[in-house]
């Protein structure tokens, strides 16, 4: 090996050593790699919506927006119906109750009439910041919104919300006797938009009755009604899913004692 070869080998070795050192230093400074994605929250739904939750095309024209316009205002093109004021929720939706004692939050949130699917792209996000949104379809902005549908997710959310509110009053009920916990009482409940009862709870049926617990049937029916009425009115249910099909204006509660 002549001198030139030795020099070349030396340079090559030095170069590799420098490269190795640089890479090692670089990895040491890099730290933990960032997570690929944020954790995704998954909720399980025990029922499958039989109806598509996606907004259906509406035959009605898109409603006027009530939200601040984000685009430039066309001064030269006045609104086709300037006499129509900005929708006033109190005019469009009857007040739930004149009772001054009603908590304010029991009133339905103003639901601009006609704010339908045509507006969703413009206002999406505002409503979803509302913690009471319940996984609703952004299109379901109005109580009569075209295309407002109770999705399986929304039904599960509303069911959970109702159960959560009724549970403390259910837990206070006293078991009248042995075997009463086999009785399942089904109530029909009709609510106003403010969550208060629109009619006395009506017992639809009872199941699980036998010779041993039949004597408790009437009492368990009382308890079922008291469990609901004790925690009425319900709070924070989404106004737009009030009177849609399978909405919470008229729903069924199955009650039973534990054990």
């Amino acid at each position, binding site marked *: 090996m002549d001198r030139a070869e030795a020099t070349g080998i030396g340079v090559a070795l030095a170069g590799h050593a420098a490269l190795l050192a640089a890479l090692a230093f670089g990895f040491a400074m890099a730290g933990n790699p960032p997570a690929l994605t944020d954790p995704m929250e998954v909720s399980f739904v025990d029922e499958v919506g039989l109806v598509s939750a996606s907004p259906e095309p509406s035959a009605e024209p898109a409603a006027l927006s009530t939200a601040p316009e984000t685009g430039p205002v066309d001064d030269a093109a006045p609104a086709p119906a300037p006499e129509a004021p900005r929708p006033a929720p109190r005019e469009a939706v009857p007040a739930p109750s004149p009772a001054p004692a009603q908590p304010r939050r029991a009133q339905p949130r103003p639901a601009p009439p006609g704010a339908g699917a045509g507006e969703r792209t413009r206002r999406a996000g505002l409503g979803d910041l509302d913690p009471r949104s319940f996984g609703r379809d952004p299109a379901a902005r109005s109580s009569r919104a075209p295309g407002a549908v109770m999705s399986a997710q929304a039904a599960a959310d509303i069911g959970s919300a109702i159960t959560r509110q009724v549970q403390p009053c259910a837990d206070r009920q006293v078991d009248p006797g042995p075997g009463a916990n086999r009785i399942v009482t089904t109530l029909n409940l009709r609510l106003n938009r403010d969550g208060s009862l629109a009619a006395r709870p009506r017992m639809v049926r009872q199941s699980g009755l036998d010779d041993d617990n039949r004597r408790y049937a009437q009492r368990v029916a*009382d308890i079922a009604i008291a469990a609901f009425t004790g925690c009425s009115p319900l709070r924070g249910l989404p106004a737009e899913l009030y009177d849609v099909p399978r909405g919470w204006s008229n729903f069924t509660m199955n009650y039973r004692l534990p054990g």
Partner: protein
Amino acid sequence: MRIIWIIAAAWSLAFGPPAFAQSPPVPVQAPPPTQDGSDDDQLVVDVTGGRRAALPIAIPFMPSPQAADTPAGNTQALGRQVAEIVSSDLRDSGLFTPIGPSGLQAVSFPQVTAPDFPYFSTTGAQNLVQGFVQANANGSLTVGCYLYDVAAQTELTRQGYVVQPRDWRRAAHRCADTIFSRLTGEGAYFDTRIVYVSETGPARRRIKRLAIMDYDGANHRFLTNGQWTVLTPRFAPNQQTITFMTYQDERPRVMLYEIDSGQTRPLVAGAHMTFAPRYSPDSRSIIFSMAVNGNTDIYRIPVGGGTPQRLTSAPGIETGGSYSPDGSKIVFESDRGGSQQLYVMNADGSDQRRISFGGGGYATPVWSPRGDLIAFTRTGSFRIGVMAPNGSGERILTSGVYAEGPSWAPNGRAIMFTRGASAGQLWYVDVASGATRQVRTPLGGSDPAWSPLRD
């Protein structure tokens, strides 16, 4: 002595507006169109909740529309006492935690049908009893009794009782019975009486007298003077007579006591020893034990007297017979198998079958008014227990102290018994919960017998 129970509808018209006028505030917003009973297309919510505990119930003093003096006292004072009796009855059941009457805000007469639900909801009560006491022009009293659900703000039931002043306590018990039945689903039992053996004096010279009292210990009186020792009194289902055993001249004999006349007579003629009597459900006959030629068997005889009909014939001692509520069967105890055990037979004595097999023996079987259980004394340990009529599901209800002599409440949910071998006391136990409570008696006692509900 007769009480007239009237349905409240008539007098409620005279008394005032019906309480259902106080239903929850009328909704101001029209609900959506009514759907039918089908919930297939509805949102369905499942709720499970409840607890095993005493039910908190508010019982304020009962007002009077106008204070008036009666032979039983002023109506305002009676209103306070009626509320206290209702509270006491419900508390004694072990199924309620009464709130009040003391300490609750006063209720005016108009408020009886228009309760201050917001106030009572702050007391923690889930239910509310209100009522009134009113003196009538004919000298009788009217006691009104209303039960409300505090949370639902609804009336659950109401009753009115027109009574003679001397029976005002019965009106209170009837009110408590109404509340108890409506809120538990069980039969009533407060408007009842208890006949028992009152025991006084030193142990070696104990005086045992037959005594009768209301369920809560009131109106106590003696039926015998203590000259003869008495045992095992039993109420006739029609409450016209009481049968019991007495030792006259050291010889046990079954006697019959007529409640209205106070007359006593032997049930069975002759010199044989007779004991352990019990009525048939129709009150027409009595089964009892009689020792003839050294063999003790169960016999039946009409209440009015006649020739006893023998129902058992096995060697040994057959005694303690008790009818099923439908009168078709009899449970009794027998030592024919070597130890005291329970047997069931048809009412005519046929098809005798042993139903108990535990060690130590069983005695004093009593068939429940519901027909579903037989109560007994477990001898040896002296505890009260129950089992199904076929002998299954044996369950001991008492523990610790000596207990014997069970007697069912008319609703079949509670059992009264004697606790303590000497200077006994009367106790009762709730069959479902096992909770026990001492019965109020002026004196020590034993052998309680619970009457049916009074007419």
